[in-house]
């Protein structure tokens, strides 16, 4: 019998949709960065996640999670951790290299915002990696 979607899988698809809807425009329609924009996106993702997760919880009768769900969750977090660690090293290293080489002509007051951008970008990509890793594991039966 073909496996239908479990409760955890549905919540993961909802998370992926929320992440792509909110973060997609940030990356693909990249404009001038600002603290307000980042804060707005964090609020938007929280609100969208609450709405979607609530809707799924209401319409799903069987909300059982088990050991396999926990194992898949751990795999997702491991993939997410390696992604964020790698991106942080590469991103901050590149920023430092350009700054040290004098190729980055930015106001020192804007440096914090650039670090925030790198950090936020790494966080978003690792979060999406974590979700996709878990969804792939579910589709491959583990």
């Amino acid at each position, binding site marked *: *019998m073909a*496996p*239908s979607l*479990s*409760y*955890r*899988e549905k919540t993961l698809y909802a998370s992926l949709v929320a992440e792509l809807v909110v973060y997609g425009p940030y990356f693909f329609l990249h404009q001038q960065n600002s603290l307000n924009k980042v804060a707005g996106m964090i609020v938007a993702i929280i609100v969208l996640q609450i709405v979607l997760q609530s809707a799924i919880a209401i319409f799903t009768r*069987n909300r*059982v*999670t*088990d*050991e*396999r*769900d926990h194992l898949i969750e751990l795999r997702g977090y491991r993939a997410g951790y390696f992604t964020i660690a790698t991106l942080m090293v590469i991103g901050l290293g590149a920023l430092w290299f350009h700054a040290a080489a004098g190729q980055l002509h930015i106001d020192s007051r804007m440096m914090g915002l650039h670090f925030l951008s790198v950090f936020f970008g790494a966080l978003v990509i690792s979060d999406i990696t974590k979700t996709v890793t878990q969804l792939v594991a*579910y589709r*491959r*039966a*583990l």
Partner: protein
Amino acid sequence: MAAIRNQIRELRARREITQQELADRVGVTRQTVIAIEQDKYSPSLETAFKVAIELGVPLEECFQYDPRGKR
């Protein structure tokens, strides 16, 4: 071939238990029962015992270990 194989599908069919019924009795999702039956997921020892108890057979009749199988 998987290192841990099982006869859950046959035992379940013999007792006319659906995947959902077995999942509910053991406390896992139906997707996990499907993954176990397809030898794609090796359950914990606790879940393996629960499955065997629900199917009314000894553990070794339900699950077999093949040392030459893929882990």
